[in-house]
């Protein structure tokens, strides 16, 4: 029962994939701006069982500039993980497509396989256009996959997706207000380690460094005394003391996972 375009987007097999798959997956491009030639790349992995009854989830990563299939799709919630040679895939037994149909979106144009025919677009991206393009992507993608219209829909993500996810949710919410029967049936969103508020996030980060004994008392007090994170631009003195903490006290660790070895 696939349409012509869905057949074109269907992935028959990925190089190095585990032999038998219990789900269908699709990928391809959706144009979001004809004038500038912006097109976003998606990868839909349908639910492993009863896909037609399961909700739809859109996953976005962080950055800005890093919402690619390297992270959510290939390291975290997708059905496949990539082995270290980059030649084969192995199954992720905790893949979220056990519970939902999942779309991974490379966003905005310029990330991963997503592209723009207007090179200046790579230098004038920002939150607003990213949210607008993502909304247009969703509307057009649902025209391509109408079986997902009116389906329970959620958004998820991490890190700078703390901006992308609520901003897209707001765009959808505003878009839906104009319709008596909205096609995008947005129910909610979930975000991890999310960038939320520059001032409070910054203070909370310094508190974490100190409370986890990653920086000295002296450096902690200097940062608290010197830095005013509510200012639009941080001062040179503040940058110096934060850089000192990063370069001389945090040490050669993986700041994204403080008890994990760094990748050599």
């Amino acid at each position, binding site marked *: 029962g696939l349409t012509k375009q869905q057949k074109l987007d269907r992935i028959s*097999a990925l190089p190095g994939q585990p032999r038998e798959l219990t789900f269908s997956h699709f990928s391809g491009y959706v144009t979001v701006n004809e004038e500038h030639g912006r097109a976003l790349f998606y990868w839909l992995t349908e639910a492993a069982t009863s896909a037609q009854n399961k909700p739809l989830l859109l996953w976005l990563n962080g950055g800005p500039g890093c919402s690619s299939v390297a*992270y959510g799709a290939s*390291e*975290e919630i997708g059905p496949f993980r990539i082995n270290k040679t980059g030649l084969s895939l192995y199954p*992720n037994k905790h893949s979220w497509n056990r519970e939902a149909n999942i779309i991974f979106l490379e966003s905005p144009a310029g990330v991963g*396989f997503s592209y723009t025919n207007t090179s200046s677009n790579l230098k*004038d991206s920002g939150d607003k256009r990213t949210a607008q393009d993502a909304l247009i992507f969703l509307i057009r993608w649902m025209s391509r996959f109408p079986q997902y219209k009116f389906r329970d829909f959620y958004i998820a993500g991490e890190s700078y997706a703390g901006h992308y996810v609520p901003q897209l949710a707001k765009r959808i*919410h505003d878009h839906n207000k104009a319709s008596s029967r909205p096609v995008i049936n947005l129910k909610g969103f979930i975000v*991890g380690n999310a960038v939320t508020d520059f001032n409070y996030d910054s203070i909370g980060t310094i508190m974490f460094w100190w409370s986890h004994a990653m920086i000295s008392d002296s450096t902690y007090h200097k940062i608290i005394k010197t830095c005013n994170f509510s200012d639009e631009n941080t001062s040179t003195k503040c940058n110096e003391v934060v850089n000192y903490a990063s370069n001389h006290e945090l040490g050669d660790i993986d700041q994204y996972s403080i008890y994990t070895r760094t990748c050599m």
Partner: protein
Amino acid sequence: CTENYAEKYFNRPEVQKAMHANVTGIPYKWTACSDVLIRNWKDSEDSMLPTYKELIAAGLRIWLFSGDTDSIVPVTATRFSLSHLNLPVKTKWYPWYSGTQVGGWTEVYKGLTFATVRGAGHEVPLFRPKEAFILFKSFLAGKELPKS
């Protein structure tokens, strides 16, 4: 190092062909993060808290979680930001469980659920896949995280 594996895999021509990707011949290699975009990002809201207030009022289901070994956007950053929403507490702070292990701690506010994931870094489902999946299932079901 898993990011490096993705760089190898997604730059293979046969992978791109199978995924119907790079059909226009993009003039740069596939890469996990675009440095050009990061360097030139134009607009970024200082605070998402007003947007959260609006979306909470709209009745959306909103969950925030935090891997507690991340020092880039750490748990204290999220808690400090969230505290400024001044949301009333619906279910008091408690440890949630993954089997017999504490998965993390959680608090349910009116309109928003916050949960930590013990031992997880920035990419929570990478470091704690089982716990992240429990979190996701609870979120989809609209249920609170398991108390035992």
